[in-house]
Every structure is written in C-alpha cells, then in structure tokens.
C-alpha cells in the first residue's frame, strides 16, 4: 500500500489540480470532476472530501468530517488518505 512507502502528512493542503474542475452534473445532481478528455463521477465519500479541499489541511478535513458525521477520526483518516492518494496518482489532486 502507498501508506507504507509514501505517507501523506496531516499538514498537507490538498487542492483540486490545475485544469480540473469540480462541478455539479445537473442531469444527475451528482458531483463530477472534469478534466481534458475525462469525466469522473464522484461517490458520496469522495464528494464530501473534495468539497473541503479548499486550502484546509488534511487533519482539518478529517476533523470537519468526523464532526459532521459523528465518525471515528482514525477510521475516517485512513479513508480520506486512500481517496486523496488515488486522485493524486491520477493527477486530479495536488498535494503540497
């Protein structure tokens, strides 16, 4: 797994990558990521995470989600990291 080799630090501020647009698909009401010659429809989890990638740190995103959904922060943090790593690898998300 990526976490053993390249852990994403709590302090990173993930952002939607340049050239990628987060948008509502009015035909379905779902959120999509639009990029050159590609469209990804987000599931509920990814949508909740990405809508918070606005300059907040990873630990702030996890904290906000844990409060909103009354969930265990440790479990949530693993899910968030996995989603971010996946999107980062596809160059849809910048992690800096």
């Amino acid at each position: 797994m990526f976490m053993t080799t390249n852990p994403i630090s709590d302090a990173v501020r993930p952002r939607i990558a340049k050239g990628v647009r987060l948008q509502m698909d009015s035909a379905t009401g779902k959120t999509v990521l639009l990029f050159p010659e590609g469209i990804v429809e987000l599931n509920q989890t990814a949508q909740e995470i990405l809508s918070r990638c606005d300059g907040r740190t990873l630990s702030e995103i996890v904290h906000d989600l844990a409060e909103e959904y009354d969930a265990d922060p440790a479990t949530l943090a693993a899910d968030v990291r996995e989603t971010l790593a996946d999107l980062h690898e596809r160059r849809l998300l910048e992690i800096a």
Partner: protein
Amino acid sequence: MTMPRPYTLLAEVTYRCPLHCPYCSNPIALPVAASLPATPKFHEGGCETTRRPQDGDYSNGELTTDEWKRVIREAAALGVLQIGFSGGEPLARRDLAELVRAAREANLYTNLITSGIGLGDDRVRDLRDAGLDSVQLSFQSDQPDLSDEIAGALAHQRKLDVAAKIRAAEIPLSLNFVIHRRNIDRLSQMIELAESLEAERVELANVQFYGWAFLNRAALLPTYDQVARAREVAIAAKARLAGTMEIFYVLPDYYESRPKPCLNGWGRRYLTVNPIGDVLPCPTASSAIPDLHFENVRARNLDWIWRESESFTRFRGTDWMPEPCRSCPQREIDFGGCRCQAALLTGNATNTDPVCEFSPNRAIVDAILRDINSNDAARDWTYRVNPKELAVSS
C-alpha cells in the same frame, strides 16, 4: 434500454489546417460533397434536399458563429459536460474565443485541440479571458527535422514557442503525439519533451487507421518489435511520473486480440458536429460508413438527432449485433469494437471489429501485419491536403 445521455461534444469547427500530417483522421473526400447524396435519399422525414448554406461569412459551408452557439446550447441541454474544439485547425476560425465563451456560459469544460499554429500572444490572452479550461497541443516528435517532415510544414519551433505562451498564460497544457512507424522508436525522448515543457498530461496515441491514416497505413503501421519496445517504455514512464505528469498511452489496436471499446458504445457518450453541421456518432463515421445517413443541425435539433435519428440508433445498444458479438460476455464492455473499422476492413459496418480474435475476419488484420513485419523498409506516404471546396486559411 434507457436512453443514454451524451457527455462530450467534439466540435470540428473547420477542416482548414496549415499542417499536412499523413495520419490525419479527417475525411479524404470533400466533406461538402460527401454529405450530399448524388441522388436524393428518402427517409422518414421525406426527401432529403441539398443543404448548402447561403450564409455570407462562411460561404465555404462552415457553420456560422450563431449556429455554433446554438449547437453548444442544445448540447448542454442534452447533458453534455465537456466540449473539445477540434478540426482541422480550430484556430483558423477567428471566432474561436467567442465560441469558447459561449461554451463556458453553458457550463461546459472547454478543451482546445490544436497544432498551435496561429496562436499568438493576443489569441492566447483572448482564449484565456474567454475561460478556456485546457489546451491539448500536438507535436509530431521531439526532433525538429523529423517533426517538420511529418507535418509537411515548418512547425516544430513554432509549437515550442506556443507551449511557452500557454504556460505563461497559466492555461493547463496537455501534449499529444500521434505514434507511428517513423517516430515510435523515440517514445522516451517525446516523453522527455513533455516533461521539459511542464505539461500536466501527455497523450501518446498510436495511429488509428481512418481517413488519411487509412490511405497511408503501409507507411505508418509500426512493426511488432517496435510496438513491444514502446509498450515497455510507456509502462516504465507511467510509473516514474505518477503524480507528476499523467501519461495516457493508446495501444495500436491491430496488435491487440480484443477490440477497443470504441466511443464506449455507439450513441452512448459522444457526439461530433463537423464543420458543415453534420452530426456524427463518431468523427470518422461519415467517411468510413458512406451508406449511413447523417442529420444536419441546420435541419434538426440535437435532441432529436441524438434520440431518434437512424445514424445514432443504428448501432446503439446490443440488438444490432451479429454473432460472435451477440452471445459474447464482452459485448457490453467492448461493444463489438469499432463500426468504422469493421466497415473499412470488411465492407460491412455491422460486422464484429476484425481486430477481435473471435471475428471470422481476423485474417484480414493478420495479413496486414504479416505484410508489414516481413518487409519493414520505409514506405512513402501521401500528405494531407485541405479540401478543395473549403477556403484555405489566409
């Protein structure tokens, strides 16, 4: 089957182009003539008549600015989320920034697919201000001499300058290389060029054989050894650059044993509007499948064309499939492959794509591969020329 909705509109705004690449997928025949049947063709709507436009600004037959704006609005209403401005060279249209603006107003993601020729500082600024989301810039190779030979024009240095202008304007940049026998051995150098230009994404697309590329196939098809080496290079580069630059490698399908899932299904995700307003399920359909009747946006709205027209319904879903597709577990994955390829290689668009190992026509593809691999000497190609009936960019 529930009616699918389109996600992407390919707007081929002109066939005019300053380059002459022998692998161009544009039709070889005159597009205006090709869209006008020699004898009137009867269909549900009655007698089809000629539809040569009377418009003064685009007397060469191209849709006008207002017509394109209407097409863009109708596409957005149908569910389209993304538009690619293509051609020909879309910069040959002076109203391109206005069309980009209209697409952004319709909430579409806008991508310019360009050779870069004609992209000066003013136009980069105009396009950025219009809200252009991304530029996909084509290169012919990493070497200036080879590139210019392939393009049939002095283009490489101008493209490098254009890439710098796009970077300076902070517009996201993708690079596109069409891969064929003359440049496939330089795949790693082409990837390095994309890195040095700080592209977000590079598409390395093995040439697909439609239009001019079909005519020039013997000169363009790589050998088996070349393909095998290139695959290794692409896989290694993809791993090395993960998270830095997205690499999209399009396989050479003649060397595959299963067909590509062309368009992700006919009339399912994509639609193309060509320069004169014909609406195509696939950009190469008008030249590859001449017996299919295509509708025009001047006569019909996009919604009807997408839902009801013969051209969009003919190969939609799986009911049209013959064996071996009809009973194949892959039929909803590869959709029987490419209709245009079936038409071009077997003479019948309804056949299974002959790339498929289960196709009764696979021997056609094997014979082509045998020919190339038994004699890999360089062969001449024919350069693309602009359609004579369309005005050439001044």
